[in-house]
Every structure is written in C-alpha cells, then in structure tokens.
C-alpha cells in the first residue's frame, strides 16, 4: 500500500486538485452557459415556427416524453404553432432539436438541430437548413421514413444525407418518438 502511495501520490493529488478546479469552473459558469442555451433555444423556436413573438412552456403529462413543448404566440396572443424541444442519441452523441408544428398540430412547419456533435462534414450536415427543410409540410400523424433516394410524392419521407445515413435516421427517430406523445395533448392547451 505504501509503495502504491509512494509511486502515485502525485497523480492522486493532481486528480483531486484538477477535479476541484473543474467543479468550480462548472459551478461559476453554468448560469451563463444555460443563458446562452436558452437564448439559442428561443431563437430556434422563432425560426421553426414562423411568426412567433413569444412562447410559453406547457406541461406534457406523458411521462415518456422527456423534452419541452412551447406554445408559440404572435403579438396579439394568437396561437401560431407549437415547438417541441426534444433530444435523443445520435451517431456520435446526443442530438437536440426543435421541431415546429402548425396550430392544428397536423404538419411540421420547421425543424432545427440545436445541439449535435456529429461527424463534421458528414453527420453535422443535419444542421443545414437545406436538409432540415425537407421536414416542412410532413404529416405529424404518420411515421417519417428516411430513404436513400429523393422522397416520393405524398410519402412521408426525407432523403438521408449521403455518407450520413445514421445521423439522418437518428434525427428522424427523435421526431418520430416525440410527435405521437405530444400531439394528443395539444388540445388541452389551446
């Protein structure tokens, strides 16, 4: 035991010191980081549900849904849509996105990936508006499928990113998982 301590005491001490430093940094910066993420979230909501001036967070009773839903309102307080903030596993790590749906809850009006660490140049093309634009006008009541070819007319499909099929599928999985849990509850909050 003493030989172990003798050989490794510096590693242990440095480990403890560094861990404390990191914990301290995390503590003091976490408020600012949360503020930044909140601002990015609000900007994303305004992007995916056009016409949003302000949004209110609403409670979803379905315990399986682990995200947040926002009721999006215009200047006069009229409902312009709903924004679902949902996350899931991606190819590399967590993907967090905001999907906007119309006031009736029937069609997607926008999608934005706000957090991801997918492969740069390939998977992280899920951030591109050209790719996420495919989700606009898709039907929220049917499962969205990912195909490796351009989407067929009327089918609820998006085309996968070349070389990033998995990342494309993971994004769609997050949307497909969130919509059925949230849609039935929207009426309560109109």
């Amino acid at each position: 035991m003493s030989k172990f301590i003798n050989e490794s005491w510096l590693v242990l001490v440095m480990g403890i010191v560094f861990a404390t430093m990191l914990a301290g940094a995390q503590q003091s910066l976490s408020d600012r980081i949360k503020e930044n993420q909140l601002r990015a979230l609000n900007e994303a909501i305004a992007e995916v549900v056009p016409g949003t001036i302000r949004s209110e967070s609403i409670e979803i009773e379905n315990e399986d849904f682990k995200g947040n839903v926002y009721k999006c309102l215009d200047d006069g307080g009229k409902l312009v849509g709903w924004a679902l903030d949902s996350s899931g596993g991606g190819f590399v790590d967590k993907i967090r996105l905001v999907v906007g749906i119309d006031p009736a809850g029937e069609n997607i009006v926008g999608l934005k990936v706000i957090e991801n660490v997918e492969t740069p140049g390939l998977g992280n093309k899920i951030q591109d508006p050209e790719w996420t634009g495919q989700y606009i006008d898709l039907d929220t009541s049917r499962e969205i499928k990912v195909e490796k070819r351009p989407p067929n007319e009327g089918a609820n499909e998006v085309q996968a990113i070349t070389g990033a099929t998995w990342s494309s599928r993971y994004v769609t999985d997050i949307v497909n998982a969130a919509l059925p849990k949230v849609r039935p509850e929207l009426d309560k909050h109109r």
Partner: protein
Amino acid sequence: MADDNGSNLAQFKAGLLSDNPVLVQLLGMCPALAVTNSLENALVMGGAATFVVVMSNLITSVLRNLIKPHVRILIFTLTIATFVTLADLFLKAYMFEVSKKLGAFIPLIIVNCMIICRAEVVAIKSGVARSLADAFGIGIGFTLALSIMGCVRELLGSGSLLNIPLFSKEFVDVHAWVIMVLPPGAFLTLGAIIGVVNHLRDRKSGGGA
C-alpha cells in the same frame, strides 16, 4: 528541435517558423484541416490550443522533479484534459456561437499531438522560462499556420474575412470557390502551403550562404 544550449528566445522563435507544428512538424493537422474554413474559427482554435499548451508546459515544468517516469504520460494527459475542459467551458460561456461552430474539435484538442509532445520533449526537462517560451512559440506558431489557412479558405470560399463580406453578394455567388470551405479545399490549401514552406526551407538550406 532546438538544442538545450539555445536561448529561450530561440526556443520561442523555433515554434513560430523553423519548427512550426503544423507546417514543419506536421502535427495538429486535423484541426488545421477541420476548423480553418473561416478565420474566426481558426483564431479561436489557435487561442484555445495555445492556452492549453502554455498551462500544460507550465505545470509540467513546475512539477518536473516530482513526476515519476512511469506515470508521466498519465500526468500529461490529466493536465491537458483538465485545461481543455476549462477552455471548453469558457468558450461555451463567453463565445457560444463560435463554440457551436467548433463543435467537437475543442474537446479534441486533448489528442492534439503537439501539446503532449512539448510536455515530453521540453517541459519535463526544462525550467519554467524555457518551457513557457517553447509553449508560446508553439501555440502562436500553430495559430499562425491556422490563420493563414483560415484567411485563404474564407477569402476564396466565402468572399469574406472574419465574417465581414469583402465583395458583393452577387460577386460571391458567381465567383466564390466553394470547394475552399469544404474538406477537399482544406487539403488543397494545406498541401499548397506546406509545398511553399518546403520550397523556402530548401532554398534556405541548399541555396543559401
């Protein structure tokens, strides 16, 4: 590599030019290729890496007599990982937009060979002044290399510099060499710059006095 008898200033200057980590030692090329599609990204990456290599060299040098050989790699990695995490938290708090653009590449600074190389080659056996001179030289040299690439790629690929457009949007839409902001453009640019650097080095050693 600069020898032990050289001055601290020589050590610093070596990292900038004659021993530039990206252009001469060919280390840290992954971030050089990946985040240089804009000058802003290149500068932030360079700044973060410089911070890490300076702190890593400083701590390694201060503790050099206490670090036992068989745990040194472990200690280097521990130190580097800690300071990269600090840099990451700082960027997320104070430069949120850029940190999102750099994405996974900030945490990847931990595996940037040039940083652990400085600890192993210089900091573990040199005093604090020498180690700091080396770290600043390498860090600024890295930032320099990345900035050159960032300038070329952003200018030719987006027609802007530091996100300030230098040409009209119509001109850029028609004439921009878009490949420059994509991965192939990164390879082309880096290859061309290294080619020029090699040529200059050959001339200096072969054709010079």
